[in-house]
């Protein structure tokens, strides 16, 4: 029996934290999961200005989109976790971070659902380096 639908996952799916969209966000990004067409969009507000580079911190974050329990719960947990973290810290996060936040094991296919939110956030952060 799979054990992915633990109470914390179902809670975060039914009542996701940080769901929505920030007005006047500093950065925004949307990414899809090519296997199912699900999409996650994130919007972030940062501290400081461009000059601070990767030392800028996440003041606030929201996400929205459609997804399965795994991707929505992951987005809820990931966005909550990165609040207050610097862009440098965010870029250092990886799949182990996401899995330990979720506290479950996932098959390779469902892992893609779980990692979509972090990937979206990191893509958003990368924009601040180029733009």
């Amino acid at each position, binding site marked *: *029996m*799979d054990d*992915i*639908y633990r109470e914390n996952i*179902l809670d975060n799916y039914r009542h996701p934290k940080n769901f929505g969209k920030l007005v006047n966000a500093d950065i925004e990004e949307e990414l899809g999961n090519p*296997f*199912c*067409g*699900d*999409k996650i969009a994130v919007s972030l507000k940062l501290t400081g200005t461009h000059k601070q580079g990767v030392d800028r911190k996440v003041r606030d974050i929201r996400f929205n989109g*459609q*997804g*399965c*329990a*795994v991707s929505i719960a992951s987005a809820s947990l990931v966005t909550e976790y990165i609040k207050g973290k610097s862009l440098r810290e965010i870029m250092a996060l990886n799949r182990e971070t996401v899995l330990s936040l979720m506290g479950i094991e996932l098959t390779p296919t*469902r892992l893609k*659902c779980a990692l979509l939110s972090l990937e979206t956030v990191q893509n958003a952060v990368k924009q601040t380096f180029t733009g």
Partner: protein
Amino acid sequence: MLDTKKIIPDFPILGKKINGKPLIYLDSTASSLKPAQVIRAMDDYYQRYGVNIFRGVYKLSETATEKYESARSTVASFIGSKEANEIIFVRNATEAVNLVAATWGEVNVDSQSNIISTVMEHHANIVPWQQLVKRKNAKLNYLDITEEGRLQPGQIENKINVNTRLIALTYVSNVLGTINPVAKIIKIIKEINPGVKILVDAAQAVPHMKIDVNNLGADFLVFSGHKMLGPTGIGVLWAKGEIMKDLPPYQTGGDMIREVYLDRTVFNDIPHRFEAGTPHIAGAIGLAEAVRYLDSLGMDKVRRHEEELVEYALSNLTGMKEITVYGPHTAGDRAAVVAFNAKGVHPHDMAQILDRDNICIRSGHHCAMPLHTRLQIPASCRASFYIYNTKKDVDLLIEGILKAKIFFE
């Protein structure tokens, strides 16, 4: 209905239990299960005469060549073709479409041309054409569907013009289950513009119903072995010899040549010109065995079996609360594939919950993203039925769906 009590024991995988429970396989649209007869035929090749074809004069090579070429004839007659050289073995339906795009398309499509496809196609019948029109600066247009998932009547007449080179159309939608009236559509097309070539994606048709290329009017027909009880890695392009015989090759190298000099090459005749390199010999042999298996059941009986199953599934699913079923609601023009969504349960989660009871369904966009965009949904659940499925499988599916709905309520 087919005698599933006799059929099921032929499929070794259905005799195995996973976590003590039987397997309820409802994803034959993605890939069918394989009967022992097919597995044995391939095993037999590797065990007894697993050598290369065409090259040797020794007995084993002659046997392998004979089996490979007789597989071609078996497959040809299965779809009503009398010309074995109109069967080109490829890896799968996807490669067959790519082959047509890269050979026929390369020669016949230019910047004035347009190609017509439909919004209900599998990506395999969209992306190769997108790439071709991009290379040629040509146009790609699409036929739309009705709310019930049938092709809208009357559009073909409006979309075809003198510059239309090809219509790429699926016989059966791998999501909606719609069986398109292909012969009728082709007749309309050829009346308007006899020069238009027609490629039929029959990946979901050949495994499930009697196909006769003589009555169809198509110019190209593609399908995959692994969806019709055969192995993976073998597929078929049926194409009219008169079209293929003068086309440039797809890939070049061994087997596809007649004479090679350091500065030039004379290519082989069809079909070998399009089968460069050592082919999937065991795959062709396995596919021929799959064809014999289906023939022994009778394709009309296969179709009737599936029609009954889909009718039963539709009557159950359409009556359920908060379940949306996509595609035609009449079994008569619908293959045994049912895409649906349950309110409040994402398809991934539905599939995962069903998997707890070893019920295998597909979730996602099923390689038909444009269709899902058209239906305004990101994803769907899809259950499909084949010769080894029973009404009890449908009952278990319904039970599982109810469980998942309660779980996520």
